[in-house]
Structure formats: structure tokens, C-alpha cells
């Protein structure tokens, strides 16, 4: 325990480091400047700013802003990047709640109830509870990393291809079991998502699949591109034919209170706690655990709720739980990086890139060799979360006011921001066109009462499932029994099977229309 405190102490001393600044115009008087705190603040601000732009998710934001940290000293650069990361995450939820444009897989779930809350004039409480939940989850996860980082690493290493495949199967079963009234249509959407995720180059042979020699399709359809089309553009198009103006006026008239009420807080407290626990555990798994964190948290919340029918219609717990899970997972996903030096996901790979630029390549000894770096980063996570809370609670009012902009001016702006956002992710005009095409597809789906959320889920889980299945079979030389002979995998499969059996039982049938129901307006 003593170690932990001295380590955390070291971390905070790094974060709160003061640098003496002696500008010439003050005639030799030096001012102490908390450089790292300032960098964290700037990172959080810039991250929020970019993350809030529709069309730019967390990974894209971090990738985009990575070069601006290259000129800084290593510790400062990483602290700033951590700030950007959390800022982007928070900014992403803001767009999901306000305009129903999720920038990444985790926010798809936030958008379900968050956007409905916004439509009912409760955008303020939705944004605030997302910030509060995220902060709480961040605090818990930070302590968890400091306390149990090293032993938890073993969990990450115990997960091989077979285990990940089973986990993804479980994820898909979640989606099926709790899908909307027409289970059939929801399953069809998941399968369509899986099919779309097959576009691009095959992982094992490199063969180009359904890419029609379009170079931009060679690596598959981007999640952000698709989400932007199916949610963002489709929503705009639909609003245009429904007379968006009247819709929006209703929203403005309804705006009631910016902060969550005492009752909201009381209701969401257990949800935040459950989300945090679930997210912390799933986040440690490097090969895609974090992807299903927010989704699993939402499902769990619905399962334990007394009145699950509220979910999908602006239930505040449906925002609080997935947001907490998402942030906790984002935090604990640092564990493999800090203890093994191996980046578990795309954002972490960028962090490693930032370290590499400074000549530090993290490895299993990074904790011993660069304790200031590791603990500084852990401490900065907490500080970053605190800052986001401080920045975002006052911002809630501004965001909510944004909703009062007349829709006739709002929608062309969203179109332009989305275009620039998608384009700037990879400087590829084709991505913008693909998003436009999926906007029309999304419009068609709405007209036929198909929901885009399960589609996006299938799209995210598809490659993870296929790749891990194939890896597992390659390693086992085609022996399918690995999925049940490896204990962890067997447990996951058993849970999946149980859920499936339960799903067939008619008693559960009623509950199905609850998770992916989005709105009836």
C-alpha cells in the first residue's frame, strides 16, 4: 500500500510540476507556471472542441491532434494527449446527445437515450450526468490502475483468439436477445452490419473483398463514415421532410433545467456504479473488450430496471451507465500499455507513437525505467477527468443553447462540419461520398422501420469475431473444440448459450422491444 501512495505521490508531483518562467518584460521576476496542468487543460479543451464536431470520433481526434504534441517534452506531451483523449470522448458523447451523431461505437448506445432526452428538453441533465458518471468512473478506474495494474495484466494475457471470439459471440447474443419488437428485423440489421464489415482486405490472404477496386475501400468501410451517414445525414434528411423547424421549436419550449434533479442523481447512482465495474473489467481486455463495455452496461441496466420500457425513450440511466462504462474502460485500457508496453487499441497505439517520437519506446520495464512518465500519466488521467468535469458542467448551458439555433441554419452547418470531419480523418474525398451514400441508405432504413444501431454493432463486432475465429482455428489447426476446452472461452460460451436459450423462452419475448427501440417521436 505504501508503494502505491509514494507512486501516486510521484505522479501528482509530476503533474503539479512548476516551471519558473522569467519573461524579459518583467525585469527578472520569475513566475512559477504549472506547465503540465496547463497542458492537460489545453488538451482537454482542444479534445472537447474537436470531439464535439460531428464526424470526428475519439481515434480520429487523437490521430489528428497527435502532431501538435510532438514539440513538447515527453511527459508533457503524454499528459496533453491523455487530456485530448478524455476531451474527445466527452465531446463525442455531446454530439451523440445533441444531434444524434455518434463518432464511435461506444457513443451509439449513448445516442439511444441521450438524444431522446434532448428531444424532451432534457439535454442539460443528459450532458451533466454523462460528465458526472464519466468523472466517477474515471476516479475509480484510476485507483484501480494504481492498485491492481500489474496483476490485472495477466487477465489481458490470458485472453487469446479463442476467448475473444467467444466474447464477441456473447456481444452479438446481447444484441439479439434485447433487440426491438421485431427481433427478425434487428437480426437482419446485425447480419447486414456483419456483411458490410467484410468489405476490405482479408486479414489472412490480403485478398480484396467486395471492394470493386476502389482504393479507399481497400481497408474497409470506416465506422465513423458509416455512422455519420446512417445517423447524421439520414437524420438530417428525415428532419427535412418532416418539417424540422416545428420539431425544434417544440424542443426549445420544453427545455427544463440544465442540471439533473436530486431524483435523477439518486436514480443514476447505482447505474453509474454498475457501469463503472463492468467497464473497468472489460477495458482491460485489449482486443475489443472496451468496444462492448458501454453496450453491455446498457443491457445490464435494462435487465435490472423495474420498468425497462422507459429505455430508448429518454431514460437517464440509459445515458449514465454506458457513459460510465465507456470512460472506465477507456481508463483501464491503459493497463496493458503501462505494464506490458503493448498498445491494446488504436488510441493507445497513437500514444506509443507519441512516445516513440520522443525516443521512448514503452516496454515491460517502462514502470521501472520511467516511473515519472507512468505515474505522471496515471495522475494526469485523474486530473484530466476532473478538468473535464469543471470544463463541461458550465459548457452544458452553451451546448443546450445551441439547440435553439433554427434548424434551417443548423442543418447546413452540420452537413459542412460532417464533410470536413470525415474528410480530414484520412484526407480522402471518397470517404465523404461513401458517408453521403449511407445517408440515403439510412433514410431508406428509417422509411422501412429498420434500426441503424444493431447494424453499426454488427459492423464493429464483425471483424473482431471473424479475425479471432480464424486465428483460433489456425493455431488449433482447425480444431473447433478450442472454444469449449479453454476454460475462459468455455465460460463465455456458456453464458452466451444460456442467454440464447432464455431468448427462446417466450417469457423474455416481451422484454425484447426495449434495448434498440429508439423513438416514436
Amino acid at each position, binding site marked *: 500500500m505504501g508503494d502505491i501512495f509514494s507512486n501516486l505521490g510521484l505522479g501528482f508531483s509530476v503533474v503539479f510540476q512548476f516551471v519558473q518562467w522569467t519573461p524579459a518584460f518583467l525585469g527578472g521576476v520569475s513566475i512559477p507556471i504549472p506547465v503540465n496542468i496547463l497542458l492537460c487543460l489545453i488538451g482537454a479543451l482542444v479534445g472537447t472542441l474537436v470531439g464535439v464536431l460531428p464526424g470526428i470520433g475519439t481515434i480520429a481526434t487523437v490521430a489528428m491532434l497527435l502532431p501538435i504534441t510532438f514539440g513538447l517534452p515527453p511527459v508533457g506531451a503524454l499528459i496533453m494527449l491523455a487530456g485530448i483523449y478524455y476531451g474527445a470522448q466527452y465531446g463525442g458523447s455531446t454530439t451523440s446527445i445533441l444531434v444524434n451523431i455518434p463518432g464511435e461505437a461506444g457513443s451509439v448506445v449513448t445516442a439511444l437515450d441521450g438524444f431522446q432526452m434532448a428531444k424532451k428538453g432534457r439535454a442539460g441533465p443528459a450532458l451533466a450526468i454523462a460528465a458526472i458518471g464519466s468523472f466517477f468512473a474515471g476516479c475509480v478506474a484510476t485507483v484501480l490502475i494504481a492498485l491492481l495494474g500489474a496483476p490485472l495484466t495477466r487477465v489481458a494475457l490470458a485472453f487469446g483468439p479463442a476467448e475473444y471470439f467467444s466474447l464477441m459471440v456473447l456481444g452479438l447474443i446481447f444484441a439479439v436477445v434485447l433487440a426491438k419488437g421485431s427481433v427478425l428485423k434487428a437480426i437482419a440489421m446485425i447480419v447486414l452490419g456483419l456483411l458490410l464489415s467484410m468489405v476490405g482486405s482479408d486479414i489472412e490472404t490480403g485478398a480484396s473483398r467486395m471492394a470493386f477496386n476502389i482504393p479507399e475501400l481497400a481497408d474497409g468501410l470506416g465506422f465513423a463514415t458509416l455512422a455519420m451517414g446512417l445517423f447524421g445525414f439520414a437524420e438530417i434528411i428525415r428532419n427535412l421532410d418532416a418539417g424540422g423547424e416545428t420539431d425544434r421549436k417544440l424542443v426549445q419550449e420544453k427545455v427544463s433545467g440544465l442540471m439533473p434533479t436530486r431524483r435523477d442523481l439518486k436514480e443514476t447512482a447505482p447505474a453509474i456504479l454498475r457501469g463503472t465495474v463492468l467497464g473497468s473489467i472489460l477495458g482491460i481486455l485489449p482486443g475489443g473488450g472496451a468496444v462492448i463495455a458501454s453496450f453491455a452496461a446498457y443491457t445490464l441496466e435494462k435487465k435490472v430496471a423495474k420498468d425497462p420500457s422507459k429505455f430508448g425513450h429518454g431514460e437517464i440511466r440509459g445515458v449514465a451507465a454506458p457513459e460510465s462504462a465507456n470512460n472506465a474502460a477507456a481508463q483501464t485500457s491503459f493497463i*496493458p500499455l503501462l505494464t506490458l508496453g503493448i498498445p491494446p487499441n488504436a488510441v493507445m497505439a497513437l500514444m506509443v*507513437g507519441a512516445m516513440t517520437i520522443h525516443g521512448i519506446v514503452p516496454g515491460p520495464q517502462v514502470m521501472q525505467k520511467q516511473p515519472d512518465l507512468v505515474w505522471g500519466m496515471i495522475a494526469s488521467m485523474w486530473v484530466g477527468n476532473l478538468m473535464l468535469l469543471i470544463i463541461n458542467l458550465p459548457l452544458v448551458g452553451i451546448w443546450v443553447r445551441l439547440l435553439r439555433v433554427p434548424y434551417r441554419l443548423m442543418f447546413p452547418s452540420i452537413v459542412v462540419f460532417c464533410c470536413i470531419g470525415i474528410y480530414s480523418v484520412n484526407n480522402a474525398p471518397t470517404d465523404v461520398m461513401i458517408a453521403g451514400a449511407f445517408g440515403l441508405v439510412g433514410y431508406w432504413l428509417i422509411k422501412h422501420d429498420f434500426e441503424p444501431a444493431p447494424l453499426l454493432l454488427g459492423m464493429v463486432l464483425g471483424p473482431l469475431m471473424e479475425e479471432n475465429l480464424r*486465428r483460433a482455428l489456425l493455431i488449433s489447426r482447425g480444431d473447433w473444440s478450442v472454444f469449449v476446452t479453454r476454460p475462459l472461452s468455455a465460460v463465455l460460451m456458456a453464458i452466451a448459450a444460456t442467454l440464447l436459450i432464455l431468448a427462446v423462452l417466450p417469457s423474455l419475448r416481451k422484454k425484447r422491444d426495449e434495448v434498440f427501440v429508439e423513438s416514436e417521436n
Partner: protein
Amino acid sequence: MNRYGRSLASGFLALLGGLGVSSSQALAQAYPTRNITMIVPFAAGGPTDVIARIVTGHMAQTLGQTIIIENVVGAGGTTATTRAARAANDGYTLITGHMGTHAASVPLYPKLAYHPEKDFEPVGLLAGTPILILARKDFAPKDLKEFIAYVKANESKVNAAHAGVGSVSNVSCELLNSVLGVKPIGVPFNGTGPAMNALVAGQVDYMCDQIVNAVPQINGGTIKAYAVATPERNPSLPNVPTTAEAGLPAFQAQAWNAIFAPKGTPPDVVTKLNAAIVKALDDEGVRKRLLELGSVIPPAADRTPAALGTLVKSEIAKWTPVVKPVN
């Protein structure tokens, strides 16, 4: 504001000047008069990106213009390289290519939309990253000789990880396997991170990878290295023998990185750029940062555009029999 003002001003100047005075000579003498775009065909923070940023940072000082790095990711770097091949050949769009984009891509993608030799002017070699033969820490063979014997004897049992079709780790492992005359099962991962994770966790047996990613893991004892596939040992891993020392001289591989310009870029522009590269590679600060990454800095004789042209030709010849085409 600087950039905006300058491009605006030069735009008006060009308009006023009747747009006609741009003979290639007049252009080249003044070159560069505006920002240069450097396309990097990989994600920010990857080995190629890091080397490109270190060197272009110094080149920008020499040339007196900003060099904007544009990371364009996709299809093993060939998306970006195709774009660079089609860019204006005025010296304002350059690309940092590497072993994959400008050599192994030729046999790998039969439908490649560019040819490294026909569509590009070689400008100059930047730095190379040596390839290591790595294995999980409890893999039975103790040294390279035992490894060769073991892999040959257990060809159907061993698993070789790689970071995706066409990646450096994939292509160099294909070379190793063809030198050894074995065809083990290749287990594909999405990038070097997950592949390294599987190696550390002991889920796969061996892999080939660039030195940058592997040094800390080797020093930390989570994986082991049999040999480095360069003629000389690397200062960051003094205890790891070269393949020649350890008994496999035929396996030589280095992930080299170099700057190319679209075909038809004026020769004096290329000369100017090459001089800036050479100057950067002689700079103490640049050298120090490159060496920290385990990179190998090319000797003076290898830094000319002509030498790069020869390297590309020989590398294409080297990879063609080894790399299987994808369709």
C-alpha cells in the same frame, strides 16, 4: 496567419504575372517558394512517420519552408503512394516511401496503380530499421542454429505471427521462411501491437519485426531475439548476433525509408532536396534521435538519388520471388 498570407500573396502574384512565366527553370531556382507537402503513407507515430518527421524537421530549416506532413493510411501504404504518383511533379508534393510501398508492393499487388521505378524520381534514402527474428520467451530453441533445426523439424507445428498481409513483419518473415525452405502457419494480426501481445502471451511461436517495437520487450525478458538481419550488430542490442554470425547469412532484411518525388520533378529540385536530406543526416541532433530508435543511417555513398534508384531496383528483384501476390 503566415501561411494564409503567403499563399494568398503568391496566388495574386501568379495571377498578376499572367500565369505564364513558370518555365521549369525559373521555378527551380526559386524553389521552394511555398509549403511542401510530405505524404506519409502510414499512421502518425509509426516507424516510418517518426523517421520522416525527424528528418523533414531538419530539412525544413535548410529549405526555408514549412514541410507539412500528411498521413494517408490505407492498403499497406499503396493508397497514399498512388496519390503521390499522380500529384503535380513540381517538387511541392513528396512522399516518404519504404520497403513495402516502393518494392514489396510490386509482387504483392499485381493490380498496383503505380510502379515505384516508372512513376517516381528517387530523392534520397533516410534511414533503415533492422529486422529481428523474435520468439516467445519459452520457445524451445536457444539460439538461431537450434531455431533453424527446430522449425525445419516441426514445420507443421510452429506458428509464425505477423502484423497483416503486406506488412514489413509479414514480408520479411516470408523471406526468412523461403531462406529456410519452410512453410509454417502464419497467424495474421492487425498491426504489430496485437502481434507482439500474442508473442508475449505465448500464443504464437515466432515472428519477424522491426527493431523499434522489439527492443524494450527483449530487454524486459518477455520475448527473446535470435538474430538481427543486418551486416552489423545494432548498438541498441549489442548482445544479439547478426544472422551472418549466427549461421544464416542469406537472411538480410531492413525496412528502409526514403523520400520520392513524382516522376518528372525537375532535376535541380531533386538535387536541392537531396542536399537537404544529406545535411539532415549529418546533423548531430538528427543522428542521435535516429540512433535512439535503433535505426541505421546510410553511409554517404548510399545517399544519392542514383543510389536510391539502384536500391529500389535491387529490392524489387529481391522480394519478387519471395512475396506471394494477393488478388
